[in-house]
Structures are given as C-alpha cells and as structure tokens.
C-alpha cells in the first residue's frame, strides 16, 4: 500500500487572471496525477500582493465546484512565487501645425461646389456690389442658400466680377447650382468671420476624386499672387500644407504663414551600464529605443516633471511603493517601449476646424520588484480553506514546464506570454536552466494606439476593434468580412449597423464609430499589433535567447489570453519564421489550450512528474 490519494490544487496568480488546476496525486507513483478540473477568475489586486487571496480562494472553490466536489477540502494548495509587475502608458504629441493671420483654409468639406480656381479681393456678402476688380465673396453664418445665390447673381448682373465664394454653412453645392456663373465655392468654414476682408485671395476646388493643383504648388501660388522668389520661398509651407486636398482657400496677408513645429515635451533620462543618457521625447520612438539599446541593460528611467511621460513614470513608481511598501527611490523602471504614432489634431489658427495628423510618441513602461508578498497570501488561504499551502516555483519557470506538455514540443523551449501590461518570455535550455524576462508594452498599448490613430476617443470601441475581425455591412442581408468573404443573413440586420464598418463579436455586429474604410481600420489595427506584440516578442526573446540569437531558440510556445487572439499568433509566427523557429499556440497537457500552464506545471512539479526547476 502506498500513501493515500491526495487532492492538490495548483494556483497561478497572473496579472489579470488567476487560474487553478485541481488534481488527485497518488503518493507512491509519480505518474499518477489525475487532473480533475481547472478554473479561471479575475485576479484581485496587484499580482504578488495580499489582495490576491480573494481571487485565489475563488479559483480554488470554482475548480472544486467544477469537479463536482464543492465541499471538499484540498490537502495542498500550491502557489506560484508571483512578483508584482506594474505598467503604465502615456502619449505625447510632438508636432503641431499653426496657421497665422488666417492665411489659408485647408480642410476637406464633404461637398465643395463648382470647379477651378478663382482669385479676387475678399468682400463680405452684405458689402457686395459696385466693386471694380474681381472679388471673392465671404458668407457668414445664418445666410440662406437661396438668398446667397440671388444676391450673387444680382451682383454679377450688375457687372461685379465674382470669381469665388467661401461659406459658413454646408451650402456650396446648393449655391453653385443656383448661380448664373459657375465659380468654385468652399463651404463648412466654421470661423468664416475671421477671414480677412479686403485682401487678395484664391479659392480652388478640384473635380470629385481629384486634388487641387495650383494652390498646393509653390510656383502655382507664385503665379497666382505674383510673388518674387523670396516671397515664394516664404509661402512654400502653405503649398505643402494644402497638398492632397480637394479644395482650398489662400489669403495673401502681410505676415501670414503656416508653420509645422516640434513641441518640446521634455527629456527622458535612461540609465544603464553605469551611464546615463538624455533623449528628447520629441525626437521620436526610434531615438528613444536607440538610447535604451545603448545603455543596455537598462537599470532605470526618469522623465521630466510636468510632462505626460514624466507623470506616468512617477505614477508607476508610486503605485509600486503603495503595493510593496518599498520607498520609491528603490524602485527602478526596468523597461520602456516607445512607439511612433499619428494623432488627428485640430490645427491651431484654422478657420474650418482643419485636422492634421500630428506625430506622437506612445510610451509603455514597466517596473517589477523581487519583493513578493505571497507568503501573506499563502497564510491567509491556509486559514480560509484549512489546508496546507506551499509556495513553489518562480513564474516563467513553471510556465515553461507547463508549456512543455504541449504535444510536439521539446527542449530547448521558449514561451511568450502576451498580457495586458507586459510581454513575458522565458527559455528552458538543454541544461535545464531557465531564464525569464518581462518587457513593457502589450494589449493596453495596442488599444491606446488604435484609439488615438482612429480618433475614436472611446476605449471600449478601440478594445472591440482590437479583439474582433472587421466587416462592412453592405445591405440588410449581407456583410463583407475583412478577408473578402460575403456572409448572407436570413433575417435583416439591425438598422444601427447599416452601411457601417463593424466588428464581428460573439454578441453580434458592433458599429465602429469612424467614417474611414474598413481597410484603413484594419491597417491601423494590424500595424498597432505588429508594433507592440511582434516587436516585443522579438525583443523579449532576444533577451533570453542563447547569445541573443533567435536561431538557437528551437520552439516558441505562445501562452496567455493574447495567444487566443484571432491574428496575433499568426503575425508572431510569421515574424519568427525567418529565424527558423517553430512557433505555435500552447496546448497545455493537450487539452487546456494556452491557458493553465503555470497552475498545471505547479501540480506536475509537486507530484514529481517534472524536474523541480532550478535543481542542479
């Protein structure tokens, strides 16, 4: 007779979820592990802190319920040695466009009127009549399109040379359709009252589907306004700013200008290898990442007070202080990921609410500490459940053991766990040694990039774009999915999705509040995932790979929630393929998918099925 069968629960407290694996272990035979059930519940509190107890107890109870033994008391609960990881996210806009003296109107109204170019002196509608030279009519708020057309027609009949018009309302087509003379008209200029009057101005409207040719060209501007070479040099930024528009207005004012300037947003001080480097955040992501490479391994980062990035870094430090009680001076930022992005921003000095896509830098930072407080969690669980609680196995290491139960894997094996705040990698080499790393930037950063680049200002919508494939609702009875396939429905789709780009969620189609095409949304989504998950996977694996060479990794197993994403695993696998790495989604014990690797690994190690990690 061997020892009696014992009930063991492995519990993995992760950043966002707490997982449990319930098993029966026969004391005498190492191969006698019967896994009975697993469970998943949100982690309570920051990982590695006493607040985890509630979630851990819930996970154990759930697993017992799932196994049909709700009132059983386990013999042993196994906890991972979880350490707190706190991450933060911030974004700085680093460029801005400023128009001075209302020199130009460069927005794209949906429906400008007429076609061609008109040059003349700006005159308010009320003053129209009796002018000698060519005039551009400026129409303020509240004017009715019928009245405007009638007044312009009367002036033209009286001999005034009206060459173009600028309107406040969305009336350009309506006015043009009622004019006796065909002129270009730009509308929806919300601050039309700030258009300088009595100045020479040019209005250009291109045919539908075309862009303007004259005002977007420096020499075109020179010819239009009769400029010398110095003046031409001066107005060339205006031409550049107008390129790509279907309509534009340029007013020649004494000192009018368009400038595109960098916004100073402070410096980052990165420290490592015994030296410190300062890098301006406005230099962009490439420069920041280069500075971090130069000081590798990074030991700390500081930002300038009063900037978003500085505030974020301080907040991350403060949170860690609150969680662990360590003084903030002892807490170091261990990794930073900077990503360049574009943010739609209203142009300063614009008359029509012009929006320019300004450059921005998004920054994710991460701090971790070795000071785990899992013993407090263990004591509390023991008190609540009335059983033995053991802490064993550093995360990452146990996860590798769990991942190794995926059919088809072999040592050396690396895992990548893409979470919400950080991306974690670990490697088990042929000698049984495990090395692990956490890098900043994961799901939350993707959501933020999607949100800002699409101008959604709606985190929920961005989250939905990140998680689900897209489709375009082409009629009440069919949608075209992003892969081009068409799906038909027997019952009409709900009206609020009609003609819209939608995400295909388990709850049905959800409209994405954008007016761009499906392709544009898809590009933003995939680009964001590539810049975060692909970049971070490569970055993290390079840190654990032997001699930093991905070629020596062998197999890479993807774990965690993001491994369930519909496209991230394929994107990561594609990026790793050139390095000769076999990459796939974990399937712990051939049944659990990418979930439960640590919890199951804890049980296996405890039962002696797997080598205790770290054994010589």
């Amino acid at each position, binding site marked *: 007779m061997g020892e009696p069968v014992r009930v063991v629960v492995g519990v993995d407290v992760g950043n966002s979820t707490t997982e449990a694996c319930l098993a029966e272990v026969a004391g005498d035979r190492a191969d006698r592990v019967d896994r009975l059930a697993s469970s998943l519940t949100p982690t309570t509190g920051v990982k590695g802190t006493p607040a985890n107890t509630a979630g851990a107890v819930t996970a154990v109870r759930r697993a017992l319920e799932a196994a049909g033994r709700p009132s059983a008391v386990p013999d042993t609960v196994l906890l991972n040695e979880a350490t707190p990881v706190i991450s933060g996210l911030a974004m700085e806009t680093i460029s801005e466009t400023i128009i001075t003296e209302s020199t130009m109107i460069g927005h794209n109204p949906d429906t400008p009127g007429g076609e061609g170019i008109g040059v003349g002196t700006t005159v308010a509608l009320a003053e129209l009549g009796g002018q000698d030279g060519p005039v551009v009519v400026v129409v303020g708020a*509240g004017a009715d399109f019928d009245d405007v057309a009638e007044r312009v027609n009367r002036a033209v009949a009286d001999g005034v040379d009206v060459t173009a018009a600028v309107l406040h309302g969305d009336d350009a*087509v309506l006015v043009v359709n009622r004019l006796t003379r065909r002129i270009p008209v730009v509308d929806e200029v919300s601050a039309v009252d700030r258009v300088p009057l009595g100045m020479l101005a040019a209005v250009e409207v291109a045919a539908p589907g075309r862009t303007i040719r004259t005002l977007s060209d420096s020499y075109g501007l020179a010819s239009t306004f009769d400029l010398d070479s110095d003046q031409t040099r001066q107005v060339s930024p205006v031409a550049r700013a107008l390129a790509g528009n279907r309509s534009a207005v340029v007013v020649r004012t004494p000192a009018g200008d368009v400038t595109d300037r960098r916004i100073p947003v402070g410096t980052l001080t990165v420290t490592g290898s015994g030296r410190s480097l300062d890098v301006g955040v406005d230099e962009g992501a490439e420069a920041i990442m280069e500075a971090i490479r130069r000081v590798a391994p990074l030991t700390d980062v500081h930002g300038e007070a009063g900037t978003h990035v500085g505030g974020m870094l301080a907040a991350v430090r403060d949170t860690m202080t609150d969680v662990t009680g360590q003084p903030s001076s002892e807490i170091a930022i261990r990794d930073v990921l900077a990503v360049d992005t574009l943010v739609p921003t209203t142009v300063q000095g614009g008359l029509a609410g012009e929006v320019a896509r300004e450059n921005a830098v998004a920054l994710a930072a991460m701090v971790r500490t070795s000071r785990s407080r899992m013993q407090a969690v263990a004591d509390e669980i023991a008190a609540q459940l009335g059983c033995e609680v053991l802490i064993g196995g550093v995360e990452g290491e146990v996860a590798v053991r769990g991942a190794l139960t995926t059919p088809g894997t072999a040592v050396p094996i690396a895992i990548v766990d893409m979470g919400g705040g950080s991306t974690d990698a670990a490697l088990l080499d042929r000698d049984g040694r495990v090395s692990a790393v956490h890098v900043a930037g994961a799901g939350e950063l993707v959501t933020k990039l999607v949100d800002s680049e699409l101008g959604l200002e709606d985190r929920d919508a961005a989250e939905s774009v990140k998680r689900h494939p897209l489709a375009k609702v082409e*009629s009440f*009875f069919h949608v075209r999915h992003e892969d081009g396939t068409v799906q038909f429905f027997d019952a009409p789709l709900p*009206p*609020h999705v009609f*003609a*819209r*780009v939608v995400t295909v969620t388990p709850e049905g189609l959800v409209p994405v509040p954008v007016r761009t095409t499906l392709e544009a949304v898809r590009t933003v989504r995939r680009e964001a995932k590539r810049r975060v998950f692909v970049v971070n996977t490569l970055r993290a694996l390079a840190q654990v790979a032997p001699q930093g060479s991905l070629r020596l990794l062998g197999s890479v197993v993807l774990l965690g929630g993001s491994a369930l994403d519909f496209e991230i695993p394929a994107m990561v696998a594609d990026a790793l393929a050139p390095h000769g790495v076999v990459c796939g989604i974990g399937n712990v014990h051939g049944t659990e998918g990418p979930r439960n690797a640590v919890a199951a690994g804890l049980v296996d190690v405890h039962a002696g099925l797997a080598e205790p990690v770290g054994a010589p």
Partner: protein
Amino acid sequence: MTAAVDSVRTLSLREIGPAERGTRPEEVVIALSPAFGDPFTKTIVDVPHAEVIRQLLAGIEEQGGVARTIKVYRTADLAAIAHYGAKLSGSGIAVGILARGTTVLHQRDLARLSNLELFPQAPLLDAEVFRMIGSNAAQYAQGRSPRPVPTRNDQMARPRWQAKAALLHLKEFECIDHARAAVEVEPVITRVD
C-alpha cells in the same frame, strides 16, 4: 448650417401622377402624410412645411442626390408611410414625415416598425435638423455611412406638447382617404416677400 429664414415661403404640392416605383439607384423618396402641406402648413412647433421640404431637398441636393416626393392618403401611420415610400424608392431609402413634424428614415428591406433613424420628438425638430436628415438620406442612398443625426431629448416636452401632438394626430387621421391612392407631387415653394 443655414437655419435663419429671412423670407416667408409657401408650399403647394402639384400633383404629377400616381406614385410609382423609381429606377434611379441613388434617389431618395420623401413620403408625406395625408395632412402635410394641405390642410396643415406647419409643424407642431410652427416650422413651415415649405421650410421642412426645402431643407430636406437642400440636404439631399448638397450631397449630390436626387429626390422624388410622394403624398400618401391611405394611412397616417408614420412607419407605414415611410416604408411605402422606401418600397417606391430607387435606392430603397425614404424619408417619411407627418404633418406635425415627426420624421423617420426608412429602408425597404427593414421591417415596417424598424427604421434607420427615427426622430420621434417632433417639437425638437427645426430647419437645421431637417437639413441633416435630408443629407443623411442622400448619403444612405449612395451607400455611404453618414454619422446619425444627433437626437435630442427633452423630458419636459411631455407637459408642453403631448396633448397638442395627440390633437394633431387626430386631425391627421381625419385626413385619411382610403379611396385615394398615393400620388407623386412636385413641391412648389414660393417666396412671399
């Protein structure tokens, strides 16, 4: 947006013939209720029917769309009026409107009681809103995705307008003529200075 109206305009609906199915794929049908334009001349908040039609048509025209207007006599039910209009519309898109101003954007494949956009609170609809409704109708007809017209809400509309709405509803029902088929009309808007 053009909201102010300096001059007074009147509306007359010149009958062209029976309302028939349109063929132009981008057209929008404006379907009017039995009392619209005649005998009533303004909405519950005194927006002249001439202005309602003018703004709807302007919204459609500004988007490069085309419109046909029909008048329905056999029902005063807004959903039925709009759905009937949608079925006659070359694009399948119609704007249905009651004399008191209540408006709906409909599409022929939808269930009658469903809609694309509904503007149930007639007291909150002004010229600017009618322009946006016309603009959105044209965009739907062209297969584009307009931003839905922002809906307004006012809890105190009930004490002020509920009874007048009921009265106008009853009057509209009085104008139902079961014997009279829907006709296509040309809205003739005349300025009275």
